[in-house]
């Protein structure tokens, strides 16, 4: 498969789908190589989360293809995609709020000293509440917990839907640090963001969506602030 040969971890083309008879996302395409971050930008309601749900197998594609390391993901359930290395941190309800913080992190395996320890050290707010029900966390703290859960998983592809939403600025900066480390380790990132500064901080590529379609795509260095701002204006 050519995609894999080019170092592309993840690629999707012609992605179309939605809810019931309504098509929300139309013909969206993109590709991410190992060690690269792609940010999906766009105003509220343009289909960014729907795109993520289509890519992760929570919604069925009406048409299009999604490939992970060259392998088509058609018809695979979310847990099967996870086994192939696709890690997903959703925007809404990012944690199991009936389980403790610790249980959220150890649901599929024990705490890993190498992977969890630096994350918990960086986010003491979670470390201090390991035994507490995650339902007692604030919205931003839940996003943080979801982020820690996802980035500690070994999968080669990380899909994050608005990871910085509601998170304190200092923690957003730490998140960006961990994402840069993940890139350095060769992982591929697809991040939906509203926080432009955060996106600028981590993105190698940018996809801008409007009304379910890609209206601008390219390398982050090439797209200047004004063009981007023009697209994101309400």
């Amino acid at each position: 498969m050519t995609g894999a040969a080019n170092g592309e971890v993840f690629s999707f083309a012609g992605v179309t789908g939605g809810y019931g008879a309504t098509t929300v996302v139309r013909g969206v395409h993109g590709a991410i190589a190992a060690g690269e971050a792609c940010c999906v930008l766009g105003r509220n309601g343009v289909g960014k989360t729907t795109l993520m749900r289509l890519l992760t197998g929570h919604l069925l594609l009406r048409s299009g293809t999604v490939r992970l390391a060259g392998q088509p993901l058609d018809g695979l359930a979310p847990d099967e995609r996870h086994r192939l290395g696709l890690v997903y941190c959703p925007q809404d309800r990012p944690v199991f709020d009936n389980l403790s913080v610790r249980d959220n992190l150890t649901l599929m395996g024990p705490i890993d000293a190498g992977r969890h320890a630096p994350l918990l050290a960086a986010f003491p707010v979670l470390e201090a509440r390991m035994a507490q029900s995650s339902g007692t966390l604030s919205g931003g703290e839940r996003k943080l917990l979801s982020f820690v859960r996802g980035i500690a998983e070994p999968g080669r592809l990380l899909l994050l839907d608005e990871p910085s939403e509601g998170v304190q600025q200092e923690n957003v900066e730490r998140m960006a640090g961990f994402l840069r480390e993940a890139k350095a380790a060769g992982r591929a990132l697809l991040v939906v963001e509203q926080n432009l500064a955060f996106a600028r901080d981590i993105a190698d590529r940018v996809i801008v969506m409007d009304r379910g379609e890609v209206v601008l795509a390219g390398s982050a260095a090439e797209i200047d602030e004004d063009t981007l701002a023009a697209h994101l204006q309400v």
Partner: protein
Amino acid sequence: MDPILTTNILNVVYEVSTLAVVVLGLAVVFGLLNVMNLAHGEFVMIGAYCAFFVQTQDLPFLAAVPLALLVCGFIGLVVERILVRPLYARPFDTLLATWGLSMLLREAVEAIYGRGFRSVATPLTGSVDVLGAGYPAYRLLLTAVSIALVAGLVWWFVQSATGRRIRAVVNNPELAGSVGIPVTALARNTFVFGCCLAALAGVMLAPLLPVNPTLGLDFILKSFFVLVVGGLGSLVGLISGAGVIGGVESVVSAVSDRTWGYSTVLVIAILFLWLRPNGLFPRT
């Protein structure tokens, strides 16, 4: 203590604990799959017939346990695959489908064994003296086994990795798949497990019941009442629901007769549906 009072208390405990075993299977399946298995009572019935079959083959009573688990586990596996899975997220359709299944299973058993009542010999005869009251030994054993079974399952559910994953799926099915929980397999196993639990209850209760094809109807109705009263939220709700339904029925039956016992339970269930439809411990 007054022996009659002692006997009545033991009857209530017996009624509540055995009912809790039947409802537990139904509730776990509903919690995880959102499927109200109206054929749950028929799995109890098939379990009871397994005990009868074992008796006709001159095998020891306990041989009915693996037989019932195999038969009901297998039926559960097939039913989950061809009936329940295609209808996930369509609660009304699963109600109809499992109701149809319950009729099918009743008719199938009737075709083999006929409508008549069969009796299964009690494997443990005699009575035990409890605080001056003579109480049937088998009932006592059954109460102890039921309490141990429910307590063991609750303990397992609370502390095991699989129990945590089941709670995770109940809380947030979408996220559960994405963190790698094999949701489909877990749902299948849970459904089969619920059927097996009903089968086990059927074997245990067989010596105390007139074994006949319609035996399951009584159980599904009572189980449903338990969930109406207790709410679908938690094990606490399940046990308190079983306490209310099983307790009220056996107390009213003791001071009056079974018809009044049953009517009172029905009235309580109606009142709950009317005034407190989410039960004592609603799902949050």
